[in-house]
């Protein structure tokens, strides 16, 4: 479903701030696979997801989604394949627009937007049903401006928007990091539910090792722009935090794992 072939990205090349954020990274993800991504601050996790989403073009390598080479495809064109939820709850929704308006925008992802009415009556019913699955009571507040919702509600809504038109690929970048622990747990639960129900191919970055171990079919750990650890199948099911740290130390040849990975 997703193939990253030797992708590299350097920020601010030729300056003192030059930073090689992705270093010939390769990764292949199967259809329907749920992959969790961990790694220390600055390991290149967000850069990897942004490269897939097309926020910038990679310097080298190829990106293939569902058999289509998207390496040089602009962000808004790639969006037809991809659903995204960001770390910042403010980033995934338009605050000055209503809940139903945000959903209607998401429901037209990858489609031509012409002079037809922006929201139809039929859609509203569908949105109500979908919102009800979140269990937050948002189904009765269709016209409420999203800016009035809490961070958790906004993230849940963004999650729904990302999956409304079943994407080929769901990209989650620490989407629970900005929430309080209780809300974070709820949003994570909703994530698991939506991913499994729609059988979505998913990449989920998390700063929490336990979440990474408890969710998904496969776990990868990034270190200095490369994949340092890649665990799946039975091995992933039996994984523990201690085992993971040990694997990281072996793979990266350094013992800075403990401080760098910050056990939360």
């Amino acid at each position, binding site marked *: 479903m997703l193939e990253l072939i030797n992708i590299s990205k350097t920020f601010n090349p030729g300056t003192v701030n030059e930073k090689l954020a992705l270093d010939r990274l390769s990764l292949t993800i199967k259809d329907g696979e749920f992959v969790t991504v961990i790694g220390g601050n600055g390991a290149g996790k967000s850069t990897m997801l942004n490269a897939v989403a097309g926020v910038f073009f990679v310097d080298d390598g190829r990106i293939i989604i569902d058999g289509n080479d998207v390496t040089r495809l602009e962000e808004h064109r790639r969006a*037809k394949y*991809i659903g995204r939820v960001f770390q910042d709850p403010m*980033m995934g929704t338009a605050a*000055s*627009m209503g809940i139903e308006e945000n959903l209607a*925008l*998401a429901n037209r992802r990858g489609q031509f937007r*012409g002079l037809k009415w922006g929201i139809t009556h039929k859609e509203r019913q569908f949105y109500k049903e979908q919102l009800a699955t979140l269990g937050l009571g948002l189904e009765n507040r269709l016209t409420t401006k999203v800016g009035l919702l809490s961070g958790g509600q906004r993230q849940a809504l963004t999650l729904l928007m990302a999956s409304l038109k079943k994407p080929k690929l769901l990209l989650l970048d620490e989407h629970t990091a900005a929430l309080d622990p209780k809300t974070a747990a709820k949003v994570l639960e909703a994530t698991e539910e939506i991913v499994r129900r729609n059988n979505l191919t998913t990449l989920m970055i998390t700063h929490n090792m336990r979440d990474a171990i408890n969710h998904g079919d496969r776990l990868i750990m990034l270190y200095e722009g490369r994949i340092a650890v890649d665990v799946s199948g039975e091995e992933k099911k039996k994984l523990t935090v201690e085992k993971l740290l040990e694997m990281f130390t072996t793979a990266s040849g350094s013992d800075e794992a403990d401080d760098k990975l910050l056990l939360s």
Partner: protein
Amino acid sequence: MSLNPMNLLSQLPGAVAQGLIWGIMAMGVYITYRILDLADLTVDGSFCTGAAVCVMMILNGHSVWVAIICAFLAGMLTGLATGLLHTVFGISPILAGILTQLGLWSVNLAIMTRPNQSISTNNYKLLVALRFLDDVKKGLKPFYNHPIFVVGIFVIVIIAVLYWFFGTELGCSIRATGANINMARAQGINTNVNKIIGLMLSNGMVALSGSLMAQYQNFADINMGRGAIVIGLAAVIIGEVLFSKIFRNFALKLLSVVLGSIIYYIVMQTVLWLNIDANYLKLFSALVVAVCLGMPYLKAKYITPIQQRKRGKSNA
């Protein structure tokens, strides 16, 4: 000189008519400034472009309607220029607008062939003119020729069209572009194209407003758009300050911009009536807009924390 209230009152219809005409421009400013979140300075040039195109077309024997439509299209071209400078060449919107505005000065001069051109109501059939105010009052013309009535119809039709347009899929995606550009791109919206469409629509309206103003005052002048952006912003902000609590619907928000523009002109008329040197009008406008723009910031910084502290104490 004495301050005769009757003088002020007699100026009122003129102020309202002018306010309505500028209100159309102000709605254009609203589209860029509020919906797209871009400060577009093209308007100072495109207002005059609209006036120039309209006057020259009428002088060359075209009907007033054709002239107005061409003015609108010319305005859209100016918006396209700014849009391309911004999206293709990556120039900041403010600078892109300033560049277009500067270039338009020459273009406008070329259209008019000299710094001003007049069209008298005697020789040409105009849609609106200052003189019609008196003509209607004296019964020489029917009420539907009154500038307030004619421009009022324009305003209503424009608000209706904008209300429809921003409710369509394309319109919604333009609103999303201004509201949250990251989210818009993530939803597959071509934000560059949307910015260009918004700038074209906005400047088309500004030029339309300019074409009506040229008819109203019976001439087009190379300097007539100078400071238009400030008047537009003033109208937007006055409208919001006075009506945002009661007008929540999009059509009503547009209406509040037009009302803001009318109020602005009544205030200006009053200032003139007070015998204040007309030279200071622009300084006065700039100050009013500066205060209005600065208010939300100062309020958030100084007043809201005090209120919160008070509330915190009373809760404790």
